[in-house]
């Protein structure tokens, strides 16, 4: 017969201070792990919601980022005549020639400034990005030095807020609108008129990339093959989705550091849990003897103490999850190694992440509880009753 779980619960409550201290140690360890993972999760989520499944991004062969790619207007004229490209209501091919560059944006937090993506775009580009909505202000006017900033940027940088003026190219650019890109990469970009921007930057002919929409899902791969095999164009093509999902590799450093720190802390915490459980076993020696006299078996005692350690760590895991919950939705930025600019996104504490945290805590509890539970089960009835 198993020892009732309420026995363990009451024991944990009776030794409040020790329980709380051990659980808090475990909670902090879980919190460190989860904050790093929530950051990675946020970046992944942002990248996953970027791009349209029917869309194809075209860059020059050899480039793996829009910023290092060059596509000429001449090349674009040939490109947009390819068969299989969807048409707009007015019958024009849905193909957007764009220019991507980087500017440095200063913020009080970072006076030296951070690289931010700046995208020159035409109306068809917004037609392709149908999730982008202007939430404040208005769209920039073609031929003017006006920009629209992603709302993630606007939240983090005073210089990206409505009415602010940015200096680049040949003059000052006014922020006239804030855009919500539906959680995607557009939230960390600045949009400007393609023609105005490219002439300001002395690159009217040499732009960066082309975004196309395939007429239907079946035609996406055919369009990609067609573009890749056209030697005259000399371009590389990929789905917009895969372009963004490849950027998740940028988070590998923070993921590694977060996990390393958490694992090292976990070793410390499970040793602490072990200490607590050994003390519990020592102090309850007489109780253990009594339980044995009552007829509870050695395995039942082993299981009971093991369970108590698991309960302790479960409490720690829950507190740890509660500690990171306020992080959920907080906007942050992280260097994207592919675009060489900052990606803005929100921390995401998903249910899967919470389960990971709790399992991680329980593993600490299991490691810490196993040996003390074993020593409790091995006690001889008589010596246990005497309290030795």
């Amino acid at each position: 017969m198993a020892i009732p779980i309420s026995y363990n619960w009451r024991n944990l409550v009776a030794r409040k201070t020790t329980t709380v201290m051990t659980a808090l140690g475990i909670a902090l360890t879980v919190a460190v792990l989860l904050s790093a993972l929530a950051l990675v999760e946020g970046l992944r989520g942002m990248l996953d919601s970027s791009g349209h499944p029917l869309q194809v991004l075209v860059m020059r062969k050899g480039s793996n980022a829009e910023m290092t790619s060059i596509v000429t207007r001449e090349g674009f004229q040939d490109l947009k005549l390819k068969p299989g490209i969807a048409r707009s209501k007015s019958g024009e091919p849905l193909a957007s020639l764009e220019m991507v560059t980087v500017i440095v944006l200063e913020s009080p937090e970072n006076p030296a400034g951070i690289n931010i993506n700046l995208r020159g775009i035409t109306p068809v580009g917004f037609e392709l990005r149908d999730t982008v909505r202007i939430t404040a202000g208005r769209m920039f006017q073609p031929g003017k030095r006006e920009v629209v900033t992603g709302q993630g940027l606007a939240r983090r940088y005073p210089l990206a807020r409505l009415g602010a003026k940015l200096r680049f190219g040949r003059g000052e650019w006014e922020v006239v609108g804030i855009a919500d890109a539906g959680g995607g990469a557009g939230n960390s970009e600045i949009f400007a008129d393609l023609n105005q921007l490219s002439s300001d930057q002395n690159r009217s002919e040499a732009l960066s990339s082309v975004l196309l929409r395939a007429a239907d899902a079946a035609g996406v791969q055919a369009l990609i093959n067609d573009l890749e095999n056209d030697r005259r164009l000399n371009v590389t093509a990929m789905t917009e989705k895969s372009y963004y999902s490849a950027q998740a590799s940028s988070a590998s450093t923070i993921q590694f550091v977060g996990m390393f720190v958490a694992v090292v802390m976990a070793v410390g915490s499970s040793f602490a849990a072990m200490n607590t459980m050994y003390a519990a076993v020592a102090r309850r020696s007489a109780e253990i003897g009594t339980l044995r006299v009552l007829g509870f078996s050695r395995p039942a005692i082993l299981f009971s103490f093991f369970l108590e350690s698991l309960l302790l760590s479960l409490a720690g895991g829950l507190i740890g999850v509660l500690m990171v919950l306020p992080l959920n939705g907080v906007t942050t930025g992280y260097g994207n190694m592919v675009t060489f600019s900052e990606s803005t996104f929100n921390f995401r504490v998903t249910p899967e992440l919470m389960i990971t945290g709790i399992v991680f805590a329980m593993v600490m509890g299991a490691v810490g509880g196993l040996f003390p539970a074993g020593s409790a089960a091995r006690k001889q009835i008589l010596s246990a009753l005497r309290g030795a």
Partner: protein
Amino acid sequence: MTKYLPLILKNALRNRRRSALTIISIAFSLCLLGLLMALYHAFYFSEPTSDQALRVVTRNRVSLTNPMPLSYQQKIRQTPGVRDVMIMQWYGGAYKDARDPGNMFARFAVEPDKMATVYPDWKLPEDQRQAFARDRTGCVVGRKLANRHNFRIGDRIPLEGDIFPGKIELTVRGIYDSNTDNENMFLQWDYLKEMMSNRRMDMTSMFVLRVERVEDVTGVSKSVDEMFRNAPFQTKTESEQAFAISFLAFLGNVKLFLFSICGAVTFTILLVSGNTMAMSARERVREVGILKTLGYTPGSIQAIILAEAVCIAMAGGVLGLAMAQGLTSFVRSAPSMLADLSRFTIPAPVAVLCLLLAALIGVVSCWIPSWTAARRPIVEALRFND
């Protein structure tokens, strides 16, 4: 106090398993703390080497990807305090499969004849330097990079360009050792120029300046930026070290990240050791009663218990620091493009700080349990039954 030392040590060793568990637990946490603080130190407090301190970098104010006219070189060269100015252009490109982070390393085009003036601290044999200068398609690579990819002199390295399109093949003409970076590749500016489109022809993304004296750094930086303040391409000039730190900011809020982890770790140690000390103190209440009957004052009893806690915490600290120092070799060999960690070690101030922190943790965690134990009335203490 020293006369109590045997008693303190005996107490610490009484419950060996508990002391060992506590020491190991503290050691792991302090190992982490030591590593993180050493990283912080390496990022933000490391002293530039005497030659690095004389280097200044000029770039376009808008961002590194925006170029500046080559004509600036001559103008900057004439600024008082400047010894020489070298063109430095980011080549980019890809080596083998660019998706493998191991194949990522920085590649710059430079002027070989100016390297000796700008980078006098580099150990690059004179014959290798000349071989590089003679070969248009030659390159020099850092020692760490060469070791990682097994590059040897005479090897040919294929690269696929992106900013400067086309496939090229460079011959390794030299391998350098430097105190500040060992992971970059440098090719000839003249060779890169052949690959440039007209648009980029007379532009570069960076100038590396060598100033005469350390005191000139601020003045030169200011006057260069001032000179181009009303020009179509404004500049941003700063010391090489500040330039390197600006890359670190790119990774996100590194300072906050390190601070919060250090905070969490410190608090965890405090909990762990506080818990242990509270347990030991409780078990010894009766002993305290006996010590009191023998005439020990509450003060000395508390001191004895505190000293035991400090001993255990310090033992954990020493062990943790030793572990951290062992781990630095992994950090040293890891590829790092954003910060130089090739000389990464636990610096003395960090070690001292960690040990002080360990001692402090011992005292803080034990203060309340030892205080209550030492001030319990004799009779009550003797009767105490846990």
